[in-house]
């Protein structure tokens, strides 16, 4: 070959510790997300949601802006879990499956990386991309908040609620990664996560509370309500939920509804359990996955 070749002095090559490799890989994958059309698309969707919220608030005002707590309780409490699910679907749906489907896995798997390194590195990158979306949504809401409430646009509950939303994001993303490595086909990761977290758990919760009539502590849709209920007073910080019964008359029918509200600590515990089960389950699956 023409030209001077640079040969490496023998013995200088030390494969980095797995921990370092995770960080490196996460950084490369995150850069990949930032450049992707998908990132731009989701940012567009989040901005669109933000614009709709802004328009609704501007039009109706009234109770929506009665207090900063009411405002964030409705829009951050209601909107951020949805943004989290979208982010998980967009960034996690094919994170693992795509490596199989697009044959990019053969590139990574030729490198001295443990399977777990690949999985965790990709998870962190997808999570950071999701956090970026949550931040974008938060910024749009806070801009509204500043407009309506000025100096008191930042209630302390908002900080905690943001953290709760990030915990929720990690749990949903964990589930998405699980599906993504369970089925080596991207479509399943997208569809299952979206169906399960947008409709599935809510339906289940209705069944559990309405028919079985117990506190739905096993459902993540119950746990994530903590993101919104933290804006209510008094705050239930506890590990067990609050039960409220209300009755109303519909025509001649007397309907009693029982509502369960998760304690903040309870919500966090449930979400973390979901994260651990899903992420570890997915990791174990990926450890056994063959690139055939």
């Amino acid at each position, binding site marked *: 070959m*023409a*030209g001077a070749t640079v040969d490496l002095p023998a013995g200088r090559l*030390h494969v980095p510790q797995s921990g370092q490799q995770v960080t490196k890989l996460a950084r490369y994958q995150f850069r990949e997300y930032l450049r992707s059309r998908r990132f731009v698309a989701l940012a567009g969707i989040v901005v669109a949601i933000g614009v709709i919220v802004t328009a609704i608030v501007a039009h109706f005002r009234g109770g929506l802006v009665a207090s900063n707590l009411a405002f964030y309780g409705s829009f951050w409490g209601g909107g951020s879990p949805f943004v989290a699910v979208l982010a998980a679907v967009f960034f996690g749906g094919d994170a693992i499956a795509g490596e199989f489907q697009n*044959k*990019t896995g*053969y590139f990574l*798997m030729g490198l*001295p990386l443990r399977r777990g390194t690949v999985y965790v590195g990709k998870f962190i990158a997808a999570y950071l991309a999701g956090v970026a979306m949550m931040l974008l949504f938060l910024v749009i809401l806070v801009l509204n908040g500043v407009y309506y409430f000025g100096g008191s646009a930042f209630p302390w509950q908002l900080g905690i609620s943001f953290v709760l939303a990030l915990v929720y994001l990690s749990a949903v993303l964990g589930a998405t990664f699980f599906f993504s490595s369970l089925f080596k086909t991207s479509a399943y990761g997208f569809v299952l996560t979206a169906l399960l977290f947008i409709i599935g758990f809510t339906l289940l919760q209705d069944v559990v509370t309405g028919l079985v009539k117990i506190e739905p502590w096993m459902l993540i849709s119950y746990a994530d309500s903590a993101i919104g209920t933290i804006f209510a007073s008094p705050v239930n910080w506890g590990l067990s939920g609050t039960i409220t019964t209300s009755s109303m008359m519909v025509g001649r029918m007397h309907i009693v509804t029982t509502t369960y509200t998760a304690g903040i600590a309870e919500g966090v515990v449930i979400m973390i359990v979901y994260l651990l089960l899903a992420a570890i389950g997915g990791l174990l699956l990926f450890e056994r996955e063959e*690139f055939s």
Partner: protein
Amino acid sequence: MSPSLEARDLTKQFGRFTALNGLNLKIEGTKCVGFLGPNGAGKTTTLKLLTDMIFPTRGEAFINGVSSRRDRKRALGDAGVLIESPEIYSSLTPNEALGMVADLRGLPAADRRDRIRTVLGEVKMTEWADQKVGRFSKGMKQRINIAAALVHDPDVLILDEPSTGLDPRGMAEVRSIVRDLKKSQRLIFMSSHILSEVVDVCDEVALIDKGKLLFYDSLDNVTSRFADGHQSVDAMLARPVGADQVGQTVATLPGVSSATLLDPRRIRIKFTGGLAAQERLVEALVGLHLGVLQVTESESALEEIYLQQISRGD
């Protein structure tokens, strides 16, 4: 320690189908070993088992003595791998993709740029270094994959049909890269369907069929052992000759059993008597003043053996 690859009773079943059946193979030292076999013979399966992309049903695979299944990170640390023509994330440029590989492999930051420039030069992709891989042709991507396998200057190279998708010049370049690599103390294990490529760059060959190893030996031994005493060389000439002329001169030389004109400037000569006879033959050929430019072992020697061995299993 000299580089090595080893398969111990390596077996892979996909469901009921046995893709690889009790492969025992130990390759050690700095050389190039060609890995041959028909479509579906189990070549890629073997290479994937060696690199822990798939898991053995039975047996174990080792790179430099390290079990790939037990410690893939250490086993692959000194290996360069190219299997199944991978896709590279399409938004990356060759510089970025190779930068990532170098970084994850632990190349000192100070050496990275030079090394990347060197390997991109070797695969003739320097001018594409900052273009996105997503728009590359198949052959261009394959060149980047080859560069990625070389960037850390590995001891062991595991290559699955490295020249697939390349144009004729690209194939020649891959050959020349592999030959250069051999000079610098490496073990190269390369599957290929192109026998001339194997004859050209490899020292040894392993042949598998239907998941079974048929033989593993040096190219010289293989050709002399299986050729029924026959050997064959191709003589390249400076000027065209006629078939009559060949029949009257070359075909009558001692030891020669047949001489066929492949094209007006190429004669295939079959003869017996091993190396000594070959030496005499070359001398006599030169003496004929036909304008002999070079005499090479004809690729068909390996081809004949290949076909003969494969058909035996049918």
